[in-house]
């Protein structure tokens, strides 16, 4: 399993990185949607991409749409990471092809529950 974390917050990237590292999951990071897309294109394949909603340059939703428009990433599960205030975006994200969503704050169990629900293979 390889994971891509796309979030403009270093804190979140480090947090997810450490959670993945404990489970021996390789994890790459990107700080905005555009970087995220570039990682998908050039550093893939990834089993899962965890994508923050609100980011500079290119939002998580834009990145989701772009990624889902490209069949090359069909095998990559996309999990949107939102805060509660963005709850009403979730549906739009699922409609646009997101596999799951994860609401901040989450803990280790929450993260891996969601990954399982999204259908990501066990680490």
């Amino acid at each position, binding site marked *: 399993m390889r994971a891509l974390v796309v979030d*403009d*917050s*270093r*804190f979140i990237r480090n947090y997810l990185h450490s959670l993945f590292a404990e489970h021996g999951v390789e994890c790459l990071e990107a700080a905005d949607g555009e970087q995220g897309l570039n990682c998908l294109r050039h550093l893939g394949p990834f089993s899962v991409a965890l994508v923050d909603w609100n980011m500079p340059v*290119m*939002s998580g939703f834009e990145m989701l*749409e772009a990624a889902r428009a490209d069949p090359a990433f069909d095998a990559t599960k996309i999990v949107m990471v939102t805060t*509660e*205030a963005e709850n009403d975006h979730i549906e739009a994200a699922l409609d646009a092809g997101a596999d799951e969503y994860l*609401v901040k704050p989450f803990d280790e169990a929450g993260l891996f529950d969601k990954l399982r629900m999204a259908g990501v293979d066990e680490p």
Partner: protein
Amino acid sequence: MDDLTREFILESREGLDRMERCLTDLETRPGDTELLAEIFRSVHTIKGTTGFLGFSRLEALSHAGENLLGLLRDGKLAANPDIISGLLALMDVLRGVLQSIETTGAEGESQQADSALIARLEELQRGDASLAVAEPVLAAVEAAPSHAARPRKPRGTGKHISRRPRGDHQGTPPPNDPGEAGPPIAVEAAPREAEPQPRPAPAAVSSTSARPATQAQPEAPAAATPGAADSTLRVDVELLNRMMNLVGELVLTRNQILQATSTDANFALLGRRLDMVTADLRESVMKARMQPVSHLFSRFPRLVRDLALALDKRVHLEMEGQETELDKSLLEAIRDPLTHSIRNAIDHGIECPDVRVAQGKPAEGLVRLRACHEGSHVIVEVHDDGAGMSIERIRQKAVERQLVSPQRAEQMNEREILQLIFLPGFSTAAAVTNVSGRGVGMDVVRTNVEKIGGKVEVDSHAGKGTILRLRIPLTLAIIPALIVHSRGQNFAVPQASLTELVHMSAGETDNRIEWLENAALYRLRGRLLPLVFLDRLLQQPPRERTAPCDIAILNADGRRFGLVVDGLADPEEIVVKPLAAVLREIGYYAGATILGNGEMALILNPGSIAQNANVTLTSEADDGLDENRAGRQDFLLVETGNRRAALPLETVVRIERIPRSRIERAGSRPVLRFEGQLLPLDDAASELIDASDDPEAQTTVVVCRDGDRQVGMTVSQVLDVTGGKQLEQAGTGGVAGGITLLHERVTGIVGLSGIPSLECVAETPAVPDFPSAEETQ
């Protein structure tokens, strides 16, 4: 403290610093959505991460701030000084808490102050209650259909929402309870004291339902763009400039090597290869600086639309050749001239719909923007199918404004009249409209385009429309220039402003230069031309009055004058280097360059020299009328063998003394190596037939433009440049190019089209179509 917390503090502080900068900017630009999004994100990130670490005090504070900022970002609330001070207060408190976490590891307690601040932020959210209600209600109504088609998930139980089959959507009843659908902010942000919320419910509905709708729109096109990013790379413009600079150095080195090795056959071959590689490399780097004109064109649909609306006209904009590429800096430089030309086309060109219909035109006017390549230039055309320009009206205006005398105006032909619109102070607008403005006329368009070495041409037919054509060089960094000497120093004169050269031998100078008080004048074909002596201008040691000299006739920004120099050297392609500020301030120089022989030369700026020397503006009309030249043309009078022949001056590219070694043979025909091209050469003067094999022997060659190609012609001698009337059209007098009367003698005009192209040179031992008509007295 663990690493994650330390990271959190660091990142949050950075966010708050950013927020502070943006907030101060916000005071001057309260509507800037970029700024608002940035501030929102700073607080949003803090809020999003506090939950992980369990900092509840920070969470409550940033939550209140986020709600307020969300309204600002979505345009539901306008920033005002009160709001900005509230946000600044929030920022201070957040910083305080971060400080406390860093030193004590805990947030500290300050329940009351926090509550007061949160309440204040709440109050600000309600802000202009009246405004906030009116707009959102509308938004809610608009958003309703899409909103209704989609079932709303139960709120606040986010963790258990899972994907449901899409087919389900239709079956679920639409939610319509505004209270239920209210945004999280409405409920959660309530102050702890739980005071009743006077906020009207509709505002609450809209803030959630309208958000997805407004966000979805801008997202769609943005998502489509990344595709192009795959095969492209972003490069810093600085880096490109540096590469261009280095290529410039390489061009200089190449020039030096070519000069140094021209005598050795082996080195000459290597030199030629270096020449080719350098040319290719230069072209590639130049290409990297190119941007398609669509970058510029894309702003015009909006401009056209707004102008048409403001003027009650109907205009359709067509754009062609958007993929045509131009150097980035030049693209910037033509932005204003082009914008102005389009304004003109719509303001003065396109008629009102009723007028158009009355004239049998479609009610909707057409403006066509077209870009294309033409040799080393890019042509940008603005074409409108409007009223066109009335020749009579231009004539009248020009006389009224005393730009030409009535007598002159009568004698001018249509083409010359049209050129008058480029004179400063000329404007045909019946009334000054607020669209085209005052004081900015076609002269500014011309000046701006000429500044970058371009040209403006106009063609107009009354009732049919106008075409304005901007001719722009592909690049600015390397230009052709003529090297001149003055008192032992080299100077480069950009070819773009050079119109002709006059040589004066010793003794001639005194007779032919006329003095009027302190101003020197030269009579060029009957017209007085102000002279500027370069040595005096630059306060060099003056030359002797009778010493031989050359006059470079320059035309810069509509000012025409002769620049007197000691002598001329070769024309060269020079690389323009920027000047140090000290030299720039002098004003006479446009840059510096290093010549092929390794010497330095300053590049003269003809425009500012003319201004400094108080050369007045020449109206275009002056050019034509002193000699009553209507219908006349300038010719280069040459001697070929024993005959005299005339070449239309406008076709002459260059006259050069060329060593025999540069003339090669393709089959039986001579060809000339010129600026990296092979040109067909017409040995009209039979210079090459009886030529000895001495490679040092030189031949005078005139290089002419014939349509898209260039051709060379050997001549025995260049006699004069003079004006004449074409007496007979091509073909009628047994002479390819017609005949003309020069210096009272009938002279044959060379028909350049008769010189075969290189493709057929090998097969056709064609007889050159050279005038056979002997001149007659």
